[in-house]
C-alpha cells in the first residue's frame, strides 16, 4: 500500500524536476533570442554580409541588444539585414548609429556591431534604417596577404640569385672569405699602427719644435721671433730686389747686344752666320800660316846673319844668367 502512495509522488518529483529544467533552459535560450521581450525592428543594408545568419547577435557598444531576424538580397550590390532590438536598449540607440559587420572573437560567428554615429539623432523607433560602414574584411586582408606573398616570392628569388652570385668564385665575397687577405690586412693594419705611432711621434716633435719656434729658441725661432733679424731680412730682401732690378737691366742690355749681334751687316753676324766669309777667313788663315812659316824661316836665316848674330848671342847669355 505504501508503494502505491509513494510511486506517484516520486514520479511527480522526477517529472517536475525535468520539466522545470527544460522550461528554464527554454526560457533562457528563448529570452536570449528575444522571444519573450518587447523588441523594436530596424534594418541596415550591407554590400555583402560575409556569413551573417539569422539569429546572429546585434551589439551596441559591445553589449548584446538584439538579434538578426531577417536577411534578404535587395539587388546584386545590397543585402538587407533586419534586426530585432530590445525596446529597453533601443532607447539608448540613436538613429545616427552606424552598423558594421564584426566577429565574435577570433573564431566566433559573425554579428552586427552598432556604434554611436555623429550628431544627436532620435532614439530608435520601429522600422528605423541605420547607416552602415564597411570594416576591414577577412577577404580583403587575405587579398593583401596574397599580394605580399607574391612580392615576397619575387624578393626571395632575387635574394636566391644574389646568393648564387655571391657563392660564385671571383667576386667581392672571395676577398671577404680569403684568409690570406685577412692576414695581409692584419699585417697592413699592424704597419699602419706603427706608422701611426711614428706620425704621432713626429707630431709631438713638430709640436715641440713649433713651441720652441714660438718661444724664439733656435735659428728658426730667432728668425721668426727676433725683430732685428726681421729688419735685416727686410733689408736683404730690399737689396735682393735692387739686385734683381740691376740684373733685369743687365739682361735687357745683353738682349739688346745680342740683337745687334744678330743683325745682318755686322761683324759678329758675319762671323756667326756668313758662310762665304768663313771660307775667306779660312783661306786667309791658310795663307797666313804659310806666310808665318816663311817668315820663321826668314827669321832663322836672319839670326845667322852676322848683322844680328851679336844681338842673339847677348840675349842668350842674359837668359843663362837669369837661370
Amino acid at each position, binding site marked *: 500500500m505504501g508503494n*502505491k502512495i509513494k*510511486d*506517484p509522488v*516520486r*514520479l511527480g518529483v*522526477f*517529472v517536475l*524536476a*525535468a*520539466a522545470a*529544467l*527544460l522550461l528554464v*533552459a*527554454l526560457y*533562457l*535560450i*528563448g529570452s*536570449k*533570442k528575444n522571444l519573450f521581450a518587447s523588441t523594436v525592428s530596424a534594418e541596415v543594408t550591407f554590400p555583402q554580409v560575409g556569413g551573417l545568419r539569422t*539569429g546572429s547577435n546585434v551589439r551596441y557598444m559591445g553589449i548584446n541588444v538584439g538579434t538578426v531576424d531577417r536577411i534578404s538580397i535587395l539587388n546584386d550590390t545590397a543585402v538587407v539585414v533586419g534586426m530585432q532590438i530590445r525596446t529597453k536598449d533601443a532607447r539608448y540607440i540613436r538613429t545616427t548609429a552606424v552598423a558594421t559587420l564584426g566577429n565574435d*572573437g*577570433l*573564431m566566433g560567428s559573425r554579428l552586427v556591431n552598432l556604434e554611436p554615429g555623429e550628431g544627436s539623432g532620435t532614439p530608435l523607433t520601429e522600422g528605423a534604417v541605420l547607416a552602415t560602414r564597411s570594416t576591414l574584411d577577412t577577404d580583403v586582408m587575405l587579398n593583401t596577404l596574397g599580394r605580399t606573398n607574391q612580392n615576397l616570392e619575387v624578393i626571395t628569388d632575387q635574394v636566391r640569385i644574389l646568393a648564387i652570385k655571391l657563392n660564385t668564385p671571383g667576386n667581392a665575397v672571395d676577398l671577404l672569405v680569403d684568409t690570406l687577405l685577412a692576414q695581409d690586412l692584419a699585417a697592413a693594419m699592424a704597419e699602419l699602427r706603427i706608422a701611426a705611432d711614428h706620425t704621432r711621434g713626429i707630431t709631438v716633435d713638430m709640436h715641440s719644435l713649433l713651441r720652441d719656434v714660438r718661444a724664439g729658441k733656435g735659428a728658426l725661432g730667432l728668425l721668426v721671433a727676433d725683430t732685428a733679424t726681421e729688419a735685416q731680412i727686410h733689408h736683404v730682401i730690399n737689396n735682393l730686389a735692387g739686385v734683381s732690378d740691376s740684373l733685369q737691366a743687365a739682361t735687357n742690355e745683353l738682349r739688346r747686344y745680342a740683337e745687334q749681334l744678330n743683325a745682318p751687316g755686322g761683324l759678329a753676324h758675319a762671323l756667326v752666320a756668313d758662310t762665304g766669309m768663313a771660307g775667306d777667313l779660312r783661306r786667309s788663315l791658310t795663307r797666313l800660316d804659310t806666310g808665318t812659316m816663311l817668315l820663321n824661316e826668314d827669321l832663322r836665316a836672319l839670326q845667322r846673319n852676322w848683322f844680328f848674330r851679336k844681338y842673339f848671342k847677348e840675349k842668350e847669355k842674359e837668359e843663362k844668367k837669369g837661370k
Partner: protein
Amino acid sequence: MKAKRRGPLHAFLVETGGFSMFVGRFFRNAFHRRFEWREFVRQCVLNGNGSLPLVAVTAFIMGLVLTVQSRPTLARFGAESMLPAMVAVSVVREIVPVITALICAGKIGSGMGAELGSMKVTEQIDAMEVSGTNPFRYLAVTRIWSTTLMVPLLVILASGIAIWASWIGVNMKDPLSWQLFYQQVIDALKLGDVLPALIKSFFFGFVVGAVGCYKGFTTAKGTEGVGRSAHNAVVMASLLIFIIDLLAVQITDLLGLN
C-alpha cells in the same frame, strides 16, 4: 517432415514485419480510453526514477571527461574560453541523448524483454487474457508510454548534470565562475540545439520500450529464450537508436537547424 531452413534475410524480414505489426498494435491500443494508469505510473517510476541514478552518474562522468579531454585541444588553438560552449552543444545535441538512450536500452529494454519473456514462457500472459485482462494494453502499452515519456525527462536531467559536471571540469584547471560559465553555455545553445535533441529523445524512448516489449512478447523456447530476448532487445534497441539518430541529424540539417 524436416522444417525448411531459412536464411538471415528471411529472419530479418520476419523480424521487421513482426516489429512493425507490434508497433501498429501499440498505436491501436495506445489511445484506448481504458488506460492502465496505475501500471503506467508504476512503470514510469521504475523506468524513470529507477534509471536516474545510473543516468546521472553517467552524465556527470561524460560532462567531466569531455571537458577535461577537450581542454588540451582547445588550449592548443588558444580557444579555452570556448570550452563551455563546445561542451554544452556537444552534450545537449548529441552525447547525452544517445548515451542516455543506450543506457535505457541496456537497463530498461533488457529488463522488459526478460520480464515479459518469462511471463510469456510461463504462460502468465495467456492467463491474463483468459482472466479478461488485455495483456497487451496492460503490459506493453503502459511500458512503451512510460519509456517514451521518461527517456526525454532523463535526457533533460542528464544534460543539466553533464553541464554542471563540465563546470567542475573547467574549474579543475582554472577557476571560472558559475555565472560566466552559465552565460557562455546559454549564449552557445540555441532552440535548434535543444528541441531536436528533445524530440529525438521521445523516439529513443519509444524504441526502447517497443523493442523490449516486442522481444518479451515474442519470446519462445523456454528460459533459454528469455535470455535471448533480453539480449536481442538491447542489441535491436541500440541499433535502432543509432538509426534514428542518423535520421534526426539528416532531418535537422534539412530544416537548417544545424
